[in-house]
């Protein structure tokens, strides 16, 4: 017990005595750790931002689109029954029909074409649709006499930002004039986006909005997608033997992680920075050992074993780099959690994830590893010093 404590106390005393020299050596290590940890942390944030943006437009991991096509259009009633059968048989919780349509809305400034997305309530979950005001569609919204619409920020601005509590109306101009109720607002997918809106499929049909090409999307667990897709495809093929059945993953991760390569490349550069820091530290440690030959000899003469000398030199390096690692990680947290950086790296996120623990562990672990490597070589040199020669050095 006293042996371990005394090794720590001795290492700490060495750090205290040689603080200026060690501080200089550690600046490089701390900067390297900051670089490495920041790359991992910013990469994680960018990945999360990219994921949210991609999931908003393409669906969560794993979103599978099913379609039945052929020389003739399949009977819609039979097709819907087949889709609902799939939902029941495979225990799918979230599904949606999606389709695109154009509609003309009366705005205070005049009539304007609006891109409509016709959906079912499950779309909100599958596409991570976060409303900034109001709410997303509920199952019973389809029963409303005045169809509900969830509009984009651009639509909401064009409509004069009415108070949603007062259930503002939006007039659809066309062969069949309809008054819709704005129930929610979602962020624009990209800056300067034109006005757009969502409406439930059933309500759109009642309002006489013709749907273009449509898809049936289901959300399944990532690990099950590979097994479920051929099963669902075979299931539909059996019901529509003359048709071409397609089951395709739509989400961003369908073909692997698209930003992993970039993150590995940047991480490799950060690793090189860390290596340079380690070499600087090793260099200073080796020079220092030359200056400490006599001191090591004196310590040996007072009973320090070679193991104790090794541990002492190692410990000094480890304690120092551990402190540098903590400082480096703290700096990286300050960088990654900086609001300006968060906004620039992940503009799609409204709430930012906590600083990734694995990035902090990686940074701290790398610092300790550098300390071990930069400490082991001088420690071996120190052990080989002959006591007699050292005292007379």
């Amino acid at each position: 017990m006293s042996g371990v404590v005394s090794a720590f106390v001795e290492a700490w005393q060495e750090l205290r005595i040689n603080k200026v020299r060690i501080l200089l050596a550690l600046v490089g290590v701390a900067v390297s750790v900051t670089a490495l940890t920041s790359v991992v942390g910013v990469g994680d944030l960018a990945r999360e931002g990219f994921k949210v943006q991609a999931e908003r437009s393409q669906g969560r991991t794993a979103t599978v689109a099913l379609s039945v096509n052929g020389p003739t259009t399949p009977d819609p009633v039979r097709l819907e029954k087949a889709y609902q059968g799939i939902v029941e048989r495979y225990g799918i919780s979230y599904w949606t029909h999606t389709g695109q349509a154009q509609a003309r809305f009366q705005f205070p400034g005049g009539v304007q074409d609006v891109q409509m997305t016709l959906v079912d309530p499950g779309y909100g979950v599958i596409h991570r649709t976060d409303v900034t005001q109001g709410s997303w569609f509920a199952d019973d919204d389809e029963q409303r006499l005045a169809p509900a619409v969830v509009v984009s920020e651009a639509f909401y601005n064009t409509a004069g930002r009415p108070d949603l509590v007062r259930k503002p109306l939006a007039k659809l101009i066309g062969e069949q004039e309809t008054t819709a109720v704005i129930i929610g607002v979602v962020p624009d997918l990209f800056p300067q986006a034109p006005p757009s809106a969502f409406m439930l499929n059933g309500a759109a049909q009642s309002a006489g909005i013709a749907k273009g090409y449509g898809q049936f999307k289901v959300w399944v667990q990532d690990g099950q997608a590979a097994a479920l897709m051929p099963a669902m495809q075979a299931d539909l093929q059996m019901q529509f033997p003359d048709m071409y059945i397609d089951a395709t993953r739509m989400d961003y991760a369908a073909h692997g992680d698209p930003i992993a390569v970039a993150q590995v490349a940047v991480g490799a550069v950060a690793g090189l920075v860390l290596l340079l820091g380690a070499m600087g530290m090793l260099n200073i440690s080796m020079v220092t050992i030359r200056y400490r030959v006599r001191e090591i000899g004196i310590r040996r003469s007072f009973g320090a074993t070679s193991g104790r000398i090794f541990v002492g030199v190692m410990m000094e390096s480890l304690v120092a780099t551990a402190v540098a690692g903590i400082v480096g990680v703290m700096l990286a947290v300050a960088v990654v959690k900086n609001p300006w950086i968060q906004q620039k790296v992940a503009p799609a996120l409204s709430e930012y994830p906590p600083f990734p623990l694995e990035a902090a562990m990686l940074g701290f672990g790398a610092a300790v590893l550098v300390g071990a490597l930069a400490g082991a070589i001088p420690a071996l040199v120190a052990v080989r010093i002959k006591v007699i020669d050292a005292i007379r050095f």
Partner: protein
Amino acid sequence: METLLSLRGVTRSVVLPDDQELHILRGIDLEVFSGDHTAIVGRSGCGKSTLLNLLGLLDVPSSGELEFLGTPVQHIGGNARARLRGSTVGFVFQQFNLLQGRSALDNVMTPLYYAKGRDFWRRRELAMEMLDRVGLAARAGAKPNMMSGGEQQRIAIARALVRRPRLILADEPTGALDVETGQTVMALLDSIATESAAALVTITHDHNVAALARSRYRLDAGVLQAVAEVPA
């Protein structure tokens, strides 16, 4: 008196780069008893330091028998020797060899980092007691570069004695001091050694310092010979 150190036919030789063997010590016979004060005199290059290294368990003989408290040291490993050295031998060097940048107190505490149990945990208290014993308690916070040669050697003595060693080895303890300071330091060293019943072996080329010892030896060309017995 208990036999602390016993050397019988001890030799020490090294192989030179041209494969020639250099015999530094030849057939050394020496007995050191508890509470004894022994002086070894000799010219530079006669093997004094090599003998000191053997006596201090810093080195092992090439041949012959060296026993420390009855244990043949050539048969024990380096780490066990280091532990034995730490607990039973205190060194006083010619150039003081204080750790620069550390206070007097830190220097005196240094050997206690290698002690176990109570001595380690009470290191500050023990070091202060020893500083007080050499009359430098008031200078506990001073660093070596702020001290005179005499003060530095007294700190070195305090450091050598803080673990209450059975054997004190002093290598030219007055070599870097003026005559008057040297005498004061030797008187202090002798009185503390006598008080703690430790054996004191002084290696010196100064006959005045050697004259303070009760047993005296001359080392010449690696051969040790008793000079004269001084009655206790």
